[in-house]
């Protein structure tokens, strides 16, 4: 089974380490110090609703609205499941259809170009772990198979009630 980026909503403290790591991974320098001048852009967003804090990320949908809406054919679903317009065959033309149809609001405008930027999973380390997950200090963001995620949840749930 493939691994997914999943969120344990009880654990997000709103520290935004994931946002910082995401941005740094999309800089040319790949280090905080080097990235500061460059101002790279994060592609996930830590939000708060009532008392709940949580990262909102691209879900790399199976029927991606952004791919369907893309008039230039730039946004694609890659064979490994990643939804991205980075390094794909056609160039993004900045029409913003993807922005308008994304249900999560996680596609944004590049800082200088009139192009859409989003989570492209180009940040993964040699284990395939995305930068946001690697940076999360509380394991609110995890990269695991859904079966494993559910098993952990079930065990925790049982431990809580028994």
């Amino acid at each position, binding site marked *: 089974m493939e691994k997914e980026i999943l969120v344990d909503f009880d654990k*997000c403290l709103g520290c935004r380490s994931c946002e910082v790591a995401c941005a740094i991974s999309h800089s040319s320098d790949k280090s905080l110090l080097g990235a500061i001048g460059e101002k790279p852009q994060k592609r996930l967003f830590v*939000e*708060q609703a009532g008392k709940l804090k949580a990262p909102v990320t691209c879900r790399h949908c199976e029927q991606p609205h952004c791919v369907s809406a893309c008039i230039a054919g730039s946004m694609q679903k890659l064979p490994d499941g990643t939804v991205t317009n980075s390094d794909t065959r056609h160039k993004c033309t900045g029409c913003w259809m993807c922005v308008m149809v994304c249900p999560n609001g996680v596609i944004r405008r590049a800082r200088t170009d009139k192009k859409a930027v989003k989570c492209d999973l180009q940040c993964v380390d040699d284990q395939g772990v995305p930068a946001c997950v690697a940076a999360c200090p*509380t394991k609110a963001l995890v990269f695991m198979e859904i079966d494993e995620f559910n098993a952990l949840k079930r065990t925790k749930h049982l431990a809580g009630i028994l």
Partner: protein
Amino acid sequence: MTAEKSCDPSVNEMLQIAKKKGISTVWDRYRAQLPQCGFGESGLCCRNCVMGPCRIDPFGDGPDKGICGATADTIVARNLNRYIAAGAASHSGHAKHLAHVLKKVSAGKAADYSVRDEAKLVAVARRLGFETGGLTVSEVAGRVADAALAEFSEREEPLAWVESTLTGGRLAKFKELGVMPSGIDAAISEILQRTTMGVDADPVNNLLGGIKGSLADYAGCHLGTDLSDILFGTPMPVFSEANMGVLKEKFVNIALHGHNPVVSEMILAAAKEDAVLDQAKEAGAEGINLVGICCTGNELLMRHGVQALTHSVSQEMPILTGALDAIIVDYQCVYPSLTTVAQCYGTKVVTTMGIAKIPGAVHVEIDEENALVKAREIIALAIERFKARKDAPTFIPDVKSSVVAGFSTEAIVGALAKLNAQNPLKPLIDSIIDGNIQGVVLFAGCNNVKVPQDSNYLAMVKELAKRDVLMLATGCGAGALARHGFLTPEATEEYAGPGLKAVLTAIGMANGLGKPLPPVLHIGSCVDNSRAVDIAVALANTLGVDIKELPVAASAPEYMHEKAIAIGTWAISLGIPTHLGVVPPVVGSSLVTSVLTQGAEDILGGYFIVETDPVKAAEALFAVIQKRRGGLNLATRAW
């Protein structure tokens, strides 16, 4: 939407203007900061060295120690101590400044200042143990100033402003715990050393150091009160008004903001001079209208009846009336955003202290030797701005409340003396014994953007007033109550229970007011929390008990500043249970949290009650009062 931001109708009017004009306010900036980092919120972030920054996982699922080995308990305790040190440095910086002024006055080197209250000077000198007979005012002032300055030196004796102002029981307790400070700056810098990397890793030992630091803060506060009374007069009951309706379209409106009357009293003096008033009139104004923001506003209100404009979290709002010509600031609690908001209006933000500058402000530095000259210069800037806006429309909310303030300890005792000249405390004590006054609660602190402005104060005052609890208030807490009409005889008529109403009416009538005193007595600025201590000490000594036996409590329902944390810590150290309406950043350590909220009761008699719901908080404070009444064999009541 706006009900989430503030209960104050004038603030809500200004928020509409801010929205229309796209002006960013403290509430917008708060929203942009959400979510705030949970490591910071729980106190589990340590940045004390460059091996870090370290975080402890509050869920026990990650690192449980910092790189040096500090645990959550150590990190939280050290962080708390640094807050206390910063608070103490602020209050004592204010006091130190006053001490230098008094010293110069005594040497004839600060002609713009003088000893306005000789009686207070002599009283303080005597309390410190000096003989004043045969000495001139200057000589006594010099001795008191030297004693004040000596509080900041290296030595072995306990702080005079702690030792000469508290009960024997408290002094013995502090000596037993080893927390008696001998120098104010010494206590502050000891905390910095203790909490830097690799010094004190014991959380409880750290907390004891924090208590010592808080007692240094207490000394600084009391010093500030005493020296301000000596230099500028001890407050006596005064009538005034509060809220934005005090602005006057055809006057040069100048707000005094910050803390030290060393600055604001000079602006007040200059604004009364004929030459300055002529300047204003030449510019087309009918006069100069001075108003106050935060503690320096309270100082001027208490001594001169200067009207209170606004407080704390709403400090940006009066600029949006278009009628505020200048905001003159010294130090503490001044939002740097004022200059950005002022840009849209041309309101002059003037900084006056070398340590407190703001980008975008005009800096006119005031020191003791040139105070009045600079004050006139600053007022001229305000008049200039008035000229520029003279016929432009203003949007001054028609919102203001009358205020009775000026309740220094001396004023309260003086008022009680009209009921019993020989033994002024007796009417108060008798009222407590017979239950007409169930107990006393002191409201202190700030507004915090995390709480709809004033909402906690308003809810709590209503619950306590109707249950015959007498209340005192200071700082922006007093300000909140002032703006909503609680510092009035009418508030007693409307909200006070029968016992409280009877007592306040008796005092009011005996003093020729023709009406009851307000249910909340404004005792002054934040350093004037020391006045409440004087009253508590007097009551305790008269009853032959310690402060921890008295049916008294304190509440900081909407605090935010480090100074508030310092004051709260000395309040519990004095044996006064203290409510906090905003969760403090200590919850990451169950040890520290339990010591502060439970263990402290056994050690000190005082402890913190953390409760964000104001009605539950009032209930908790009432329960404290009833428990203490029971301990004194007084009749108790249910909630």
